[in-house]
């Protein structure tokens, strides 16, 4: 750790340009600053109460030792009791106000992240394909609460209490106050910084091995069945063991630096007390301090130090919070990959059934990398088209492009109306789609279907569920279609999920329907039933079936193979 890195790190921590992620996330919640400040003041009052308790007590016993009439000490007696109660009460208030502020921010951040994600979804498709990324994002939002409650608040309180205590001592013995200020600054800034630097260095040193160990462990534990089946378990375990020994050795070496940081903190605290007593005694001897106030000067530093004792731990939460803030801002700042036209045309009031035309259609998830290019087709109402192709030929991207979930170019029209000129929600009121990996929300089955059309009544939802062949299953459930889907559809099999997703399209009124692999996860007879319902629904609509299965394609009037 060279001196230059020290300085640079210090800058990182202290200097905050307007672009600093930890500052920018403040913007997610209006009024947060005021609420945090209020919580900080309450927290400082709580700790200052105990400083005042010690100061008043010291004053009380010093005066008492001179044995004046007891009535003259009444104020001090009352003060001691009041400060004794003050601490608990202020602390309680601080925690409530602080948590209220944090929860408001949680709400604001969630909303900002949701709106940003709604704009870019599903372009950063990794987030939706990999559950861990999504979980991490949700966790990041929660993590920001740590920043407010465990970092800003303790630092604010530490600062206020330090100022108050130093001011109090300054009133009696300025030199002791300077020593106290230096000591508090050392304990509140230098010691946390040392701890932070040490942790950061250890994290960097151990990162590659830890990453390697993580992936080995995932292989061993999360793919336990397959790894056992492949006879790999012991080999992987041995590799983890080797990495673990290395990591443990590194961590044990790092322990020394933590010890040094803590020892310096203890030394600073002790030095403040020694300085107070030496300066105080000198002041008494010089006649600058009334002798009975010496105990006050000595006891204040002892009590004040509590405010900075928690700061090394607070500092440790900063890097993690910063990473969370950066990941969140990355989402929030991401440009909209599928912007609506600046001046969208209005949706024609009464669209007469007509052909659905797609020409020169390109889809590219990332600029310049077309997954699909120059695709053109036309579908007439009641004349379903099958889009076929090998897995990986980009069939699913067509659906995303047509519903403006992915950036696309080319012309798309229905019954002569240019759909690319419409605003996204209008577009989606013309094209209804069932993506391959439809999501089931943790609500009732009926609500999951009604999602596609809020106007659909109970009758229509039930009819749609019956049409896709879920009747018998629903009857076996305790609450029928009002049974809630387990989280992430865990209680619903792949086939049932697929059918619920298809039922959604049946309650919708879109004149164009695009479905992706409608019979995946279904056995032959269920597949036929689902296709019957779908084709019946689309008797007068334009239907595009994206599939790699001959049985789906065979029922369509036309077919087109993507290469």
């Amino acid at each position, binding site marked *: 750790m060279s001196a230059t890195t020290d300085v640079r790190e210090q800058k990182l921590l202290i200097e905050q340009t307007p672009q600093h992620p930890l500052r920018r996330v403040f913007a997610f919640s209006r009024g947060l600053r005021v609420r945090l400040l209020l919580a900080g003041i309450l927290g400082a009052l709580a700790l200052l109460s105990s400083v005042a*308790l*010690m100061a008043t*007590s010291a004053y*009380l*016993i010093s005066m008492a030792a001179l044995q004046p009439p007891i009535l003259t000490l009444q104020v001090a007696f009352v003060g*001691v009791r009041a400060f*004794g109660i003050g601490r*608990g009460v202020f602390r*309680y208030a601080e*925690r*409530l106000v602080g*948590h*209220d502020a944090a*929860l408001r921010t949680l709400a604001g951040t969630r*909303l900002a992240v949701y709106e940003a994600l709604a704009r870019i979804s599903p372009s950063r498709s990794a987030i939706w394909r990999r559950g861990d990324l999504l979980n991490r994002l949700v966790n990041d939002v*929660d993590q920001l609460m740590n920043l407010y409650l465990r970092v800003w608040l303790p630092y604010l309180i530490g600062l206020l209490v330090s100022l108050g205590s130093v001011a109090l001592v300054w009133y009696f013995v300025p030199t002791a106050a300077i020593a106290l200020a230096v000591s508090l600054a050392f304990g509140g800034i230098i010691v946390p910084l040392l701890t932070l630097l040490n942790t950061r260095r250890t994290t960097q040193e151990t990162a590659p091995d830890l990453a390697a*160990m993580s992936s080995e462990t*995932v292989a061993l*534990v*999360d793919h336990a069945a397959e*790894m*056992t*089946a*492949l*006879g790999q378990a*012991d080999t992987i*375990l041995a590799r*983890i063991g080797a990495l*673990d020994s290395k990591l*443990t050795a590194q*961590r044990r070496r*790092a*322990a*020394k630096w933590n*010890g*040094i940081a803590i*020892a310096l*903190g*203890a*030394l600073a605290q*002790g030095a403040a007390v*020694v300085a107070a*007593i*030496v300066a105080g*005694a000198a002041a*008494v001897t010089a006649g600058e301090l009334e002798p009975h106030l010496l105990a006050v000067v000595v006891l204040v530093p*002892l009590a004040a130090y509590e405010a900075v004792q*928690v700061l090394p*731990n607070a500092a440790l939460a900063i890097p993690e919070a910063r990473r969370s803030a950066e990941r969140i801002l990355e989402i929030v700042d991401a440009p909209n990959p599928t912007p609506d036209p600046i001046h969208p045309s209005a949706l024609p009031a009464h669209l007469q059934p007509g052909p659905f035309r797609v020409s020169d259609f390109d889809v590219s998830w990332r600029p310049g990398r077309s997954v699909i290019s120059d695709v053109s087709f036309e579908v007439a109402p009641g004349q379903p088209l099958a889009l076929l192709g*090998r897995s990986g030929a980009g069939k699913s991207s067509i659906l995303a492009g047509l*519903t403006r979930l992915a950036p696309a170019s080319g012309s798309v029209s229905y019954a002569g109306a240019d759909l690319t000129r419409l605003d996204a929600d209008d577009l989606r009121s013309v094209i209804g789609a069932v993506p391959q990996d439809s999501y089931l*929300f943790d609500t009732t089955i009926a609500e999951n279907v009604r*999602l*596609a059309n809020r106007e659909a009544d109970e009758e229509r939802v039930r009819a749609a569920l019956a049409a896709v062949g879920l009747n*018998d299953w629903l009857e076996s459930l305790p609450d029928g279609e009002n049974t809630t889907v387990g*989280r992430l559809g865990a209680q619903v*099999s792949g*086939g049932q999920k697929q059918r619920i997703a298809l039922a959604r399209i049946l309650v919708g009124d879109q004149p164009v329907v695009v479905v992706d692999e409608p019979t995946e996860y279904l056995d032959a*007879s269920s597949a036929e*039933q689902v296709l019957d319902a779908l084709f019946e629904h689309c008797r007068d609509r334009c239907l595009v079936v994206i599939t790699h299965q001959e049985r789906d394609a065979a029922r369509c009037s036309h077919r087109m193979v993507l290469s």
Partner: protein
Amino acid sequence: MWHTYLLNYRSSMARPFDPRLSRFTSATRQYLIAAVATSSVSAVFIVAQAWLLAYIVNAVFLEDSDFSAVWPQVAWLCGVVIARSILAFGSETLAFRAAAKAKSQLRMAALQHAVALGPSALAQYETGELSQLVTRGIDALDTYFARYLPQLFLACIIPVVVAGAALTQDPLTTLILVLTVPLIPVFMILVGWYTRREVDRQWQSLARLSGYFLDIIAGLPTLKVFRRAKAQAATLAEVSKEYRKDTLRVLRVSFLSAMVLELLASLSVAIVAVSIGVRLVEGNMIFQTALFLLILAPEAYLPLRLVGMHYHAATDAIKAMGVLLDLLDTPLPEYQDVSPDYRSAGYRLADVSLAPGQQTVVEGVSLTIPSGRVSALVGPSGCGKSTIIRSLLGFLSPAAGEVELEWPTGRCAVTEIAPGALLDHVGWLPQNPTIVAGTVRENLHLGNADPAMTNAEALERVSLLPPGGDAEGLLNRMVGDGGVGLSLGEQRRLALARVLLRDPQIVLLDEPGASLDPASEAAVAQAIDWLREQGRTVVVVAHRPQLLEHADTVIDVSRFSMATFDETTVLPGLPS
């Protein structure tokens, strides 16, 4: 975090120290002894510092001593300060080193035990839960060892030492300490009990609200397609507000326990101050004693306060440890010493019920899988085909009945054979095979120390390589984590080649046709035919008629299934 945050309150009755930790990790045992020693020395230093301070102030204040008269005491005070910081260095270093060692011991013990328990026992954990815990999750032990445990010891030792020191000076102060210090944990437990009931009552609704955010984000693409994304933002704001109000209602009660602690601690100090103040005025006490007691009194409560604070940080560690210690406490299954003749072995299932999780999926399954033939399991999706495959591998113990391996001279329950021994002879292609980041060769060699055929042969068998094709080129091709760079069909064929390379006598293929284009499907069918020619026992789960044509027997699983289906679905035109 809010989840865990509230959970911490909920579990604040958890044991402060789990004795199993010291049973499983020798580092913990050694550390506990060291922690008691450093805490005791630290308590003595606190008393010494208080005495020196009181002495010096008294001398300067009341005895009009010249400053030079107290120099020896100031020097002693400096000595105590230096000694305290050296002690802090020692105990901190010790704690982190112990934490590093204990983490390592706990991690390796848990993983070894997990492997010994086998996949069936691990199925109860959520995906990623256990691996996260043993890698990063147990880092929380640092805080536990370096902050919480020492504080726990200090909280037990310091009040006793302080009360003892006070006793030599003033029994009344000792009495106040003895009466109030134990009140803190007692009151916290009482308040904890009360708030826990309150939190429990709101728990369900809070958990649901917290999960709501994840749910709508995960389903955003679906919301967008159905034009619900914008409307949902308003609902989210509404739900968040409700969540905040409910949470605060819980916290208002939960924070009471902290308030009780703070109130008791600082009020007790105030009582001590008032009591000694009164006696000073009355001339029943000398100033030096009074100041000594006043400096000491808060020290008796401080460790208890800090325990409460660090407990918060330690709950993560306590939770992580709890899961791992529970895992370590799970007894290992006992295996029989049998060596079945896998070459001529088939399966026999007699009246088997299978219930992964809590729910019975299949019931009364009675069937035989003949040796050296290809058997197909068919039935509607969700009827339990994969569940049966898992039971054949011994990954799922039947809730009732027996899943047995049967050969001409004997038979044996699958779960009685050690997984390692069984799986040397039983090959399995899972529904979603694992493809690791690396070359195709590395993936192929995963689990093949002593391959039964050449790499090229195996790749040809699954048509990943045309006969006479560039085997080296393909083998050196890089594949990303999770199979990035290979199509779904290619991934499954690579995994199948890996199984073939192991040369198992019994081969279980779970939906090898899923997500396959016709060419890949044909390749799988060809591999099945080859296995039959080799006289292997094959079980294949299939939907598609194309694969069923290659089966000798077709077993319809839907008749055992607990789920209801429209009708039995023996597919048309098949041998039955």
